């Protein structure tokens, strides 16, 4: 297929996944902010949330101090913020419109409906919308798009590029979400293992729609090691880093098979899967959670570049 078409498909998936992450981040922030004793330290949870989403600078420029109401607007409705939910939905739909013919009517409908609905949501007075309404709406739209892709799209290279987009974006985003925890805790290391610490971990699990699954899988007390294992190393957890990277690797393998040629991108993805497969939670904490995540995010970025060069740039020979 045209490289540009593949690029558009890849980005549809990335934007949908990113929109979902943004609304999950909002949920994490709102929940953490509900705990009475969390106002300590020199940096608020909201700030850390902006840091993790990579939007802190843009926000500070526009609004200054992080106030929940402004953050909600900035992360959800603000077109000046390229990562806001509305920016992501609009771009996903625009990418879809460009490659309309590579999509089924159902996939296009899902993208187009999300676009039409968020424009209506935007016109509603902000005071009439609950935050949970927004986050649930986003999650639902994302599920509709994914469902339409799974149920109706031809299993060809286009399907692989969509899944590759979902997987790489998810790998990056989950890592950033876990990193929020790092920012929140940084000023008070002595909180580790306290009730507040555990509460924050729970919020994170909840935001990833994974707290029940976690309890089924691990039971007993919530510990940092268990959670790290669950969100990073457990293949059963659909948002775990290893699951996302495995999905990316599978899509790359499918492409290699379809095109009859394999390159450095396949090797790199396989190597990342292998590394995570052998890793244990303790080793992550030895390295430092933040350090590990930073390295992981960089690895995913490099893999994305390789994908771009191999398939999306149009320079393939």
């Amino acid at each position, binding site marked *: *297929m*045209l*490289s*540009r*078409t*593949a690029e558009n498909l890849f980005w549809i998936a990335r934007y949908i996944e990113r929109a979902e992450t943004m609304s999950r981040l909002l949920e994490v922030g709102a929940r953490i902010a509900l705990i009475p004793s969390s106002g300590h330290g020199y940096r608020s949870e909201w700030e850390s949330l902006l840091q993790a989403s990579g939007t802190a600078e843009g926000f500070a420029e526009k609004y200054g101090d992080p106030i929940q109401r402004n953050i909600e607007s900035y992360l959800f409705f603000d077109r000046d913020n390229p990562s806001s939910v509305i920016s992501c939905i609009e771009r996903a739909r*625009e990418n879809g*419109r*460009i490659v*309309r*013919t590579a999509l089924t*009517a159902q996939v*296009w*409908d899902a993208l*187009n409906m999300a676009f039409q609905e968020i424009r209506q949501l935007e016109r509603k007075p902000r005071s009439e919308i609950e935050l949970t309404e927004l986050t649930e709406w986003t999650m639902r739209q994302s599920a509709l798009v994914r469902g339409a892709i799974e149920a109706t799209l031809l299993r060809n*290279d286009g399907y692989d*590029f969509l899944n590759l987009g979902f997987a790489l974006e998810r790998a990056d985003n989950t890592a950033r979400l876990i990193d929020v925890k790092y920012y929140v805790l940084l000023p008070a290391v002595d909180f580790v293992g306290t009730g507040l610490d555990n509460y924050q971990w729970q919020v994170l699990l909840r935001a990833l729609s994974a707290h029940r699954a976690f309890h089924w899988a691990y039971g007993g007390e919530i510990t940092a090691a268990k959670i790290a294992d669950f969100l990073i190393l457990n293949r059963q957890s659909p948002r775990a880093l290893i699951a996302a990277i495995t999905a990316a690797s599978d899509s790359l393998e499918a*492409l290699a098979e379809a*095109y009859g040629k394999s390159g450095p991108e396949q090797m790199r993805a396989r190597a990342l899967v292998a590394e995570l497969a052998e890793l244990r939670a303790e080793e992550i904490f030895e390295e430092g959670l933040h350090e590990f995540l930073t390295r992981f995010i960089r690895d995913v970025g490099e893999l994305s570049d390789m994908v771009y060069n191999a*398939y*999306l740039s*149009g*320079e*393939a*020979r």
Partner: protein
Amino acid sequence: MTDYFNEMYETGKVRAPYARLENWTKCMPAELRQMKQAEAEALFRRIGITFAVYGEGGDPDRLIPFDMFPRVFAQAEWRKLEKGIKQRARALNAFLLDVYGRAEIVKAGKVPAALVYQNEAYERAVAGFTPPRGIYSHIVGIDIVRTGPDEFFVLEDNCRTPSGVSYMLENREIMMRMFPQLFRENRIEPVDGYADALRRTLASVAPAKCDREPTLAILTPGHFNSAYYEHSFLADLMGVELVEGQDLFVEGGFVWMRTTEGPKKLDVIYRRLDDAFLDPLCFRPDSMLGVPGLMDVYRSGGVTICSAPGAGVADDKAIYTYVPEMVRFYLGEEPILQNVQTWQCAKPDDLKYVLEHLAEIVVKEVHGSGGYGMLVGPKSTKEQIETFRAKIEANPDNYIAQPTLALSTTPTFVEEGIAPRHVDLRPYCLVGEKIELVPGGLTRVALKDGSLVVNSSQGGGVKDTWVLAE
């Protein structure tokens, strides 16, 4: 109002082609009609068939109003139209081949040399080059108006990239979905063979160097273009890639697509891009939309461009006057379809007449399109007429004028019920190995009461166009 030919009612009686529609409307109460109208609109919006009006801003996702009342032709009426359209398409192509080659028609004194060679649309860059099968205009859109039971006139020819065919196809699709009963009661010729016919046409003009099943693509200016929907719609129907300039490059005398598997050779390009933007090395150097080097490949026979660059010289409004002459000169036949009488303001006598009769006639820019820059005398205020007079006097060469035609009307759903509204017709004639015409076209309707301007940018709508089988 009695001056206008009503295609459904003639002296109070229903004309045969519309016979079964009378009952249909009688059985449709206002509420049902409104419901159906809303349903149609929702369908159009869902498939994303929208258009943007240049220079107007506003909602980029605007819909062209769709009128559910079909416009109907009897088989015999259509057969005559079909013959006339095909004849005209052949003559226009013969003219193009001639003026870029030996120019016999100019030498014979039938068409003034200056009109051809000093024309903006004459491309020196393709002179002396013969495209495959000698065809320049592969999709000819001919705008036709009707003034009586057996009176049809050609308003203008479109030899470059006539748009609107997606409406012809979608209008039918939506009508069939909403009123299947109508299609059971009336035997209506299908139009859905258009995409296959277009594909066949394009494949039949692949370059001689192409030794396998040719690869086709549609070249679009991009997704910001107002006709992007149509480009993507046609690409999908034909199963070919929709490419932008950035997706293509030239190497080794061929054009290649950038794909995820490496370069793929392209043989035929159906371009929906003006000549000026095709190749910055040959035409506008600032064009970001084209493919550098494309024209070199084209002229050395490595790729076919449809319609051929330079085809516009045949559909210029000043050349239009000579089309009947082309039919006689090249085909040795009498033209089946008549031209509208045209005064060329470049000619002193004509100019005089035009300036004296501004209130009665229609004045158009020679190179204008889309209903912009025109004056409809009888519908204009004194002020508008005087402003236009000044424009004509300043640059007479830029204008032609035609009598105000008594455009036929067809019944149309309006606020108050059903009322006659003026219509025109654009059929799409395909010219390749064969000349093909699907039975139908795009009927445009002036929705404003009394208006004669059918352009979508000026408040026009569209209708499904039926040709009844025998």
